[in-house]
């Protein structure tokens, strides 16, 4: 990386930054979808940011004994105790590495899904997302999105909560809430 290249990049950044103030305010509506590109269990996925209520990193997780291998434990968020489940384990390909990222699913009851790597925050047009109807019970993937580096399946956080509830025996209540 030559100094000239860096200087050019610096100039481009500065221009882009200045231009961002000159552009009209973007609309944050249905035309666009905010996505988080993540890796769970070594596989790429995408999450809808609209289905999340927060993103955290390196939160301490207190393990809980139980029959669910996907349950990593509980963690405190804003004064509430939230169970933390391994996204990779829910998707059926658990890996021994302990995930360090947590995403809080919107809605209640509160649920945190842990994944291994945050690839970035992307904003894509809604038209680019290939929608998919709800599949079988236990399938938490809804649609796909083409991103740089390949097409990623989209993890549906409510479906994940439903799966957790079903695993823990709270299917009806969950259905009622939905």
């Amino acid at each position, binding site marked *: 990386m030559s100094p000239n290249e860096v200087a050019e990049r610096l100039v481009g950044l500065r221009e882009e930054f200045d231009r961002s103030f000159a552009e009209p305010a973007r609309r944050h509506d249905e035309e666009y979808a905010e996505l988080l590109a993540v890796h769970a269990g070594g596989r790429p996925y995408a999450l809808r*940011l609209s289905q999340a209520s927060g993103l955290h990193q390196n939160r301490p997780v207190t393990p809980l004994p139980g029959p669910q291998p996907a349950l990593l434990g509980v963690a405190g968020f804003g004064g509430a105790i939230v169970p933390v489940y391994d996204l990779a384990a829910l998707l059926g390909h658990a890996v021994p590495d302990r995930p360090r990222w947590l995403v809080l699913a919107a809605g209640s009851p509160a649920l945190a899904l842990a994944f291994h790597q945050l690839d970035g925050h992307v*904003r894509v047009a809604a038209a680019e997302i290939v929608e998919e109807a709800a599949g079988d019970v236990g399938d938490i993937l809804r649609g796909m999105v083409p991103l740089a580096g390949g097409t990623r399946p989209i993890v549906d956080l409510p479906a994940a909560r439903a799966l957790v509830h079903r695993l823990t025996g709270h299917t009806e209540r969950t259905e009622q809430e939905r």
Partner: protein
Amino acid sequence: MARRTFGTKLAGGVGITLFLTLIMGAAAVAALSVVVDAKDDAIRVAAEDLVNAERLTTKSESRISNYRAFLLSASQTSLDATNADREEFLGLMTKLRGTLTDTTARNLLDAVSAAEVTYAAVLQPVIERRKTMDDLREISQLNVSATGPARDSLRKSIADLTTRVRAEVEVSRKEASNAATRSIVVIVVLGVLAMAFGSLVAAKLSRDLRREVGAAVGHIQSSSAQLEAAAAQQASGGQHQASAMNEITTTISELLITSRQIADSAQRVSTIAEETAEAARNGDATIDQTRASISAIRTQVDQIVQHMLALGEKSQQIGGVVELVSELAEQTNILAINATIEASGAGEWGRRFAVVAEEIRKLADRTAGSAKEIRALIEDVRGAVNTTVMATEIGAKSVDAGARQFDDATHSFRRIAQLVATTNDATREIELSTKQQSTAVEQVNVAASDTARVTRESESSAVQTRQTAAHLSNLSGDLLNLVGTGRR
């Protein structure tokens, strides 16, 4: 005798013969002196004693005559003559008494003396009476009858003495003749002995001469024959030797040329060795400079390593700062994402806030990307630093190894320089030795030439020796004939 030389034998034989001759001469001289003494004794007895005895008779007769003349004339003269005769008679008696040795003759002389005393006693009264007488007619009164017997007695005693002395003379003559005869016999015996011994020596010498000289001459003949053969062989050998010496001389000349070439080559080698030693000395200075350069390189390499380690440490610190920046960017990103999440449910203001959050997130992304690039760059730098440090340490080790090898090379070089010096000395010695060798070879060449000449002379001498040996063989044959004996 066999051990003695012939000259010794000859001298011995001649010496013994000469000794016998000397003994014979001495015996002859002794015999002659004995004979002369005997004859002198006989002559003395004959000449003195017999003459004196005869003169006693004469004086007695003269005294008697003068006495008778006195009786006739009564002259004093006659009486004095008578007395003088008696004195002479007594003197002769005294002389005879001193010379006579024979006892019988001495007794006879005493008898003569006694008779003369008696006769004088008889005469004295007669003489006194005649002095008183004047008339011759009274002569008968003289009473001379007593004088006759006394006179006869005296005459008889004198005659007896004379006869005895005469007999002594005869005895002395006979003794002298006997001594002479004995001397003749001794001389003749000695002469016969000398002749016999001379003949013996001559015979033995002749026999030895025939035997030993003949044997020696025979040996000389055979030896001269062998000498002739040897001389012939020596002559032929001398020819071979002369040709060999010519070849040797030629070879030595070639050797001399080669030796001079070697000397020239040794001189060139010495010059080259001198130049090499000079180059080695220059190389020694270069080695010292190189050693100093190597030490400087080693120091600079150490400094490079230190600087590189410092650089790695700094880059590690930069990495830490970049980690911090990256962490900040990540946290900013998280905050931006959460702000976006929060803004999505906040209506229109929330949307504006979401835009700002979007921008913040972009900046955080870019910051994270830049931090990532910086981290990669730092990793590259650290890798490069590590590589450089390793390479530098390898270089330092190489420099150390090179220094050691250079020390070895220096040691070898100095060893080479010493060897070159030694070689130089050795080359000088070789040069000197080769020059001496050249001189020696020249001397050998001269000596070989002399030897060749001597060989030719020796060859001619051998020919002469062969001729001389042949001549000697003939001469020995002649000598054998001359000695008169055949070969034994």
